[in-house]
């Protein structure tokens, strides 16, 4: 393996549980604000996990809503905004790379087709499949947001849609490879995901990954009393180009790597350290994955310290926003760039009693003088993503 290529970030946009404005969300992160609330996206009172960090606003009403569900619409919005923010032109030399965690299927849409089905599957057509909306397949097509973004934004270059909990990192890495190969001159990369769906919450809770605490008692990642993560959701987009343009619009420089080791739960420590080894080493801080499970948090800290040093500062964007799945690395890229530029690092939101261990978990906003940061994101099964951000 060789080091990941470094590219320039030229534009960005996001929808997060703390808002859509880069400046406002950054201010809230630095203030240690958390988005976690009692889940009101649907009646989750009987669930093991009753809290969530959800995006407050609804997506704008656009013509593509025939084909896209809520998170796909957010993905389209951030793609549009990021491209606009970059000021770059579209066309044949712009590539489009999407990462999403999985369908997190919207079974509510399918109830007319499902509610009279029987376990043996007999008579499935008359029992409701004939009621599926003609666009149901398109609404659940794995690359529908990608296709609609290409159509609206007139992006015609190389591209692909990636899936899985580290799909955002896969999309970033693929975009960087395409830029490096010269196949495109600009890459529009989007990551979007939501854990806040009934069957996803049921599944994650059964695996013991989610917090069972209430809105007022949720403990933070890296806390010695941590009891599982808060499900979150986000959509984020960055516009990338090769380093070297002289337009003065480089917001930051990015490297990305993705990996997997087939472990049923978290990736092995060696997977994380191998990922980090692909990135440039040097003076840095770390944005941790923060699963909020003491054993896993400690293992993560050991792996990160091996790479960055025992006393490296540790922050955790996910502590404020909840776990964001495929959107995580893109959100981390934006959040870290802003903090590096402000020379101030956000605390781990809600952290009160940091568990003993390596690295230095931050309990308050802390001035920094470094110009680079690493971020790790993880998902099951054994999936990981890593990015490095440098600012000029």
């Amino acid at each position: 393996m060789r080091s990941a290529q470094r590219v320039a970030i030229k534009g960005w946009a996001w929808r997060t549980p703390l808002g859509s404005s880069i400046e406002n969300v950054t201010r809230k992160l630095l203030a240690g604000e958390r988005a976690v609330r009692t889940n009101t996206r649907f009646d989750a009172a009987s669930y093991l996990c009753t809290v969530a960090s959800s995006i407050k606003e609804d997506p704008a009403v656009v013509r593509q809503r025939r084909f896209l569900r809520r998170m796909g619409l957010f993905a389209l919005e951030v793609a549009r905004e990021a491209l606009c923010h970059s000021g770059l032109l579209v066309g044949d030399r712009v590539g489009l790379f999407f990462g999403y965690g999985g369908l997190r299927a919207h079974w509510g849409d399918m109830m007319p087709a499902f509610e009279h089905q029987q376990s043996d599957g007999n008579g499935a057509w008359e029992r409701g499949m004939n009621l599926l909306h003609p666009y149901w397949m398109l609404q659940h097509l794995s690359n529908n947001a990608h296709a609609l973004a290409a159509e609206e934004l007139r992006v015609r270059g190389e591209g692909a849609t990636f899936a899985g909990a580290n799909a955002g990192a896969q999309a970033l890495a693929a975009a960087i490879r395409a830029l490096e190969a010269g196949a495109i001159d600009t890459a529009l990369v989007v990551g979007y995901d939501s854990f806040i769906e009934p069957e996803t919450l049921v599944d994650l809770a059964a695996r013991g990954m989610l917090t069972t605490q209430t809105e007022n008692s949720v403990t933070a990642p890296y806390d010695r009393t941590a009891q599982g993560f808060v499900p979150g959701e986000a959509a984020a987009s960055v516009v990338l180009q090769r380093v070297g343009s002289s337009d003065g619009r480089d917001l930051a420089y990015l490297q990305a790597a993705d990996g997997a080791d087939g472990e049923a739960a978290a990736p092995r420590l060696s997977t994380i350290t191998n990922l980090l080894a692909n990135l440039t080493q040097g003076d840095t801080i770390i944005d941790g994955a923060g699963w909020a499970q003491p054993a896993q948090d400690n293992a993560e800290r050991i792996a990160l310290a091996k790479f960055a040093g025992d006393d490296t500062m540790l922050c955790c964007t996910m502590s404020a926003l909840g776990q964001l799945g495929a959107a995580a690395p893109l959100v981390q890229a934006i959040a870290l760039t802003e903090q590096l530029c402000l020379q101030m690092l956000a605390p781990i939101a809600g952290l009160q009693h940091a568990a003993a261990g390596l690295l230095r978990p931050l309990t308050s906003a802390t001035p920094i003088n470094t110009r680079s940061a690493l971020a790790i994101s993880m998902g099951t099964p054994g999936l990981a993503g890593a990015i490095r951000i440098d600012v000029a």
Partner: protein
Amino acid sequence: MTTAVISGFGAVSAFGVGSAQLFDGLASARSAVGQIRSFDASHFPTRVAGEVDVAAIERHWIMPHLGIINTDTRVLDEFESIGAWRDRKIVFGLLAAMEAWRNARCGIAEQAAGLVMALGLEQAFLEDFAPFFNDKGIDWQAEQAVRSTGFRYRSDVDLAAQLISRLLDLTGPTIVNASACAAGGLAIAQAASLIERGTASIILCGGADSMVNPLGIGGMTRLGAPSPRCELDACRPFDSRRDGLVIGEGAAMFVVESEQRALQRGVKPLARVLGYGSSQDAYRVTAPRPDGAAARTAMQCALKRAQLDGSAVDYINAHGTGTPLNDVAEARAIRELFGAHADRLPVSSIKGAIGHLMAASGAIELAACVMSLQQNLLPGTAHHQQKDPHCAINVIGEQPREEKVDVILSNSFGFGGQNVSVILGRYQ
């Protein structure tokens, strides 16, 4: 730049489990499309598919096809315990991967391989939902009270990749491509890209998919994509009477590695990956770009990467879905890009014989291309009998053609206008 080569492959299709079955089927000009048997489709408007001949997949069906593996079968036990075989594409992907792994003579030294896999929709399981419906939808409270340890309602989108990676103990990067019908071609393209750039030296790649289930067939039928005729010749690529696609299922997997690596371990490559290119239609999610301009761009990019002129291409394995819009757009793209060469450039589609494998279609078609290079046989286009004047290309009819070719281009043009072209070359 490092040259990427294919050193082994495996396939599962409606012709059976194994690449030999695929070749025999295509060589004999048969069609494997038949009545759906894996579930009761008798009242569905769409009742035919390119279905792998197994009703309910169980361990005793899997093991003989799996072959001898030097691995701990506890991984299989674990996946069986969570009900993984219910999602047919997981098994198809596994069997194709194991054949590819064996044929490329991979072993412990190859476990650093990466995995690039094209996968389709998560499968929904009606039998899981049915007991918990009430008049408001799913009674999640009741569901939680009886929850078992297996996955329920749907399979994870990357479950097949998880299984293959764990069974073979692969340690390289894992990429799951979900780019609909272009995913299979993109998976091989991405693998080649990673090899060429030195990010990896060996990758297991390909695609697996099955939509032959009530929701898959039902959703596609409601969309209007399959042929409305439930006849065995329902898919007639480039035929003037074509009226829609036939859904298929299966998988194809490849071992792609650097030429140097293959030769060092004494394996003669089967084919070179000469080039690849992708593009977006940026047109409509429901229809391909009528002028074929973006499809042409994908082919142009592949030729450019391969440093080839269009005249060097000896055969095109077309996306050729048998839908009225796709085939004419693809034919236009081929005609405009290849000009007069298109008059004699043979083109065929194997979708009439095995159906449209969706996320795996590009992979299974590249498997057919490798066979063409090895066996000097170009597959025919099943059920293509009446030429369409709007498809002004040299379509091979139903019978395969014996012909030695050196350079093959394979197209995959996905829903939503995601296009990829891959060029393979004979290894000499």
